[in-house]
């Protein structure tokens, strides 16, 4: 730390630009647009919110749930404070998970790495140098046992973030381990991301063929509905869509239409919405425009309730409710002046809570640099804790409800969302929009527009296009590295287990799985048995892929061992 300079007054002119200071004094905001580009007025009045309109808003806990899904919101229970964790080996991930619970986290939240999401075993030739770089790689039951070791599965709500078509494998591996440890699946609490359809847009297209994405995503929903009734079997991921650079209303519109693909498939399989919608949930982004994000969430709740009631005939309250977790917007963070990210994250977390969030992940300030360091992770958790315990935001449900501005913006975003949904209808619905790559083109166009906004300073990003400084030479709280030692050990263990397992039992169970897939049955129960018999992630995915006419290995490097 530098001390102040011990200089005597002198008359030398400083190099401060005082004209700039004067200009800054009189400066006013250049833009009056929301982040998503909606023009807003300088003030909102009762004319913007006629009192008869309250029937569209209603009290928290009352249809259409604009103001929240519970009447007392956080007085009943805080949101779940859980940070996403996934790094190195299953053991590394296990250790960091326990650390954050020890620091006051109220749930677990582990994320798959790229090989796992692709459905590759840790010993796949393309996977070996990337295992553990962006998450955790679970190749077999042993890896899942290591990650969950000595954690009482009946006392934690565990969020498993495997988003691709491989989430069915994750669910099977978790269930197999829980069964082995003597837990009653019916009593387990937690969440699995399980939204393979959206994950093609995160660079995982080879692992997520469209038909297989809908089939396997729905298999998880169907299985959990019957066997794990407390488990949230999907969090349809609006967040990842938003990270492509799209606007707030696009995020909700596209996400809802993807959600409908799974619901429609469940209905095709003969279920009524009230039989399965109670555990349907969403994963939402909170970007930097506080009021727009709160309004987006409020609009989403209203649209979802109406969609479920009016289009699907849902009668139960729990089938109509839009339940969601928030991930603060990673793409809003930059490595320039990295401590600024702490402030961005805090505002985004505030909007999530003002919007009535059920579970929150605050991004770490070092998100645009590396995986979170221990300090970075803890700081993200502390951001949540300051919000929860110090600021008073938990006292009142939907504190922005009735704000002329927020109610007006909620209505306008609702209109925008309906408009975008209608556009997708025009191209033949979401399945067609995906199949024909219409949606890819929207994402590309929007991402380019976001870059230009920053280049042209239509949007300000402090440290990037305003108030810039020389690039730092170090990251303030250090850089998280992934130990090659623990990962190498994991890969060796995978190879060893493949050699040592009971070959005939393994083959029998993997062929059972393949046969079930051929019969187009729900594959999840067969994956549990196959996992118990030593089958791996890549083998189980491969069996199902072959059955649907896709190459065993999404990268087409290795051949089926059965």
């Amino acid at each position: 730390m530098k001390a102040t300079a011990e200089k005597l007054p002198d008359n030398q002119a400083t190099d401060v630009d005082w004209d700039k200071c004067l200009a800054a004094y009189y400066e006013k905001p250049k833009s009056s647009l929301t982040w998503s580009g909606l023009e807003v007025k300088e003030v909102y009045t009762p004319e913007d919110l006629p009192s008869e309109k309250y029937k569209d808003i209603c009290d928290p806990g009352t249809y259409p749930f604009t103001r929240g899904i519970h009447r007392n919101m956080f007085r009943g229970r805080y949101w779940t404070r859980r940070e996403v964790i996934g790094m190195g080996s299953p053991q590394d991930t296990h250790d960091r998970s326990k650390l954050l619970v020890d620091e006051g986290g109220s749930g677990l939240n582990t994320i798959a790495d790229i090989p796992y999401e692709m459905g590759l075993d840790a010993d796949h030739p393309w996977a070996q140098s990337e295992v553990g770089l962006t998450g955790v790689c679970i190749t077999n039951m042993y890896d899942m046992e290591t990650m969950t070791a000595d954690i009482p599965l009946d006392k934690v709500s565990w969020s498993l973030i495997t988003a691709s078509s491989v989430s069915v494998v994750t669910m099977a591996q978790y269930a197999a381990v829980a069964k082995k440890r003597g837990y009653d699946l019916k009593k387990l609490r937690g969440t699995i991301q399980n939204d393979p359809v959206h994950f093609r847009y995160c660079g995982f297209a080879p692992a997520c063929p469209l038909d297989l994405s809908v089939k396997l995503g729905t298999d998880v929903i169907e299985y959990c509905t019957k066997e794990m009734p407390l488990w949230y079997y999907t969090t349809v991921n609006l967040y990842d869509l938003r990270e492509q650079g799209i606007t707030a209303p696009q995020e909700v519109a596209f996400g809802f239409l993807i959600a409908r693909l799974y619901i429609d498939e469940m209905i095709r399989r003969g279920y009524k919405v009230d039989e399965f919608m109670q555990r349907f949930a969403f994963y939402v982004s909170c970007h930097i425009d506080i009021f727009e994000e709160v309004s987006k969430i409020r609009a989403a709740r209203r649209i979802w309730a109406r969609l479920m009631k009016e289009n699907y005939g849902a009668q139960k309250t729990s089938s109509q409710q839009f339940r969601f977790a928030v991930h603060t917007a990673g793409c809003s963070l930059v490595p320039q002046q990295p401590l600024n990210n702490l402030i961005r994250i805090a505002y985004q977390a505030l909007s999530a809570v003002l919007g009535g969030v059920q579970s929150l992940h605050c991004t770490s300030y070092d998100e645009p640099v590396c995986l979170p360091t221990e300090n970075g992770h803890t700081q993200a958790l502390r951001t949540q804790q300051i919000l929860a315990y110090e600021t008073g935001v938990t006292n009142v449900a939907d504190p922005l409800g009735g704000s002329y501005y927020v109610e007006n913006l909620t209505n306008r975003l609702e209109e925008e969302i309906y408009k975008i949904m209608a556009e997708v209808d025009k191209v033949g619905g979401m399945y067609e929009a995906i199949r024909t790559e219409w949606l890819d083109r929207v994402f590309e166009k929007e991402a380019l527009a976001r870059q230009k906004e920053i280049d042209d300073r239509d949007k300000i990003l402090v440290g990037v296009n305003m108030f810039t400084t020389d690039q730092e030479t170090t990251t303030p709280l250090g850089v998280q590295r992934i130990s090659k030692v623990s990962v190498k050990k994991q890969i060796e263990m995978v190879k060893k287990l493949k050699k040592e397992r009971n070959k005939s039992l393994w083959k029998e169970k993997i062929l059972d799985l393949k046969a079930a897939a051929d019969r187009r049955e729900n594959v999840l129960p067969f994956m549990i048995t196959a996992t118990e018999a030593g089958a791996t992630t890549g083998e189980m995915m491969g069996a199902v892929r072959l059955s649907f006419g896709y190459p065993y290995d999404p990268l087409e490097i290795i051949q089926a061992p059965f």
Partner: protein
Amino acid sequence: MKKKKDNKVRKIKVLVTKVGLDGHDRGAKVIASMLKEAGMEVVYLGMFMMPKDIVDAAIDEDVDVIGLSTLSGGHLVFTPQIVEEMKKGGLNDVRLVLGGVIPIEDVPTLKEMGVDAVFPAGSLTEPIVTYIRNHVRQ
């Protein structure tokens, strides 16, 4: 504009790619479009490329710059492999430029490995374009 081989004036040619399994391609696609708009010729190689694939394409397409976008933390593993392939392929005049989620601490290491420039996430387009224009051998 530059002259090369056949002495005809031609555009600066840039290969934009990802390496390994890292599929986060928003940045790669955006920079490919922005370089095109800046008047360069862009070969977008896309995802799931191994170092040899990248260098083979760079040779086939006779590019001036290889632009590698990376997010998943594999840059220290893959960069030396790409540099090695570039040496084998005799691409001594080709610039290797990295962009993406890269700890600033790694920049000196990457430069020692043979990377010409690193642009972290959040970079504006203009300095990238200027860098390429100034450093492609005229």
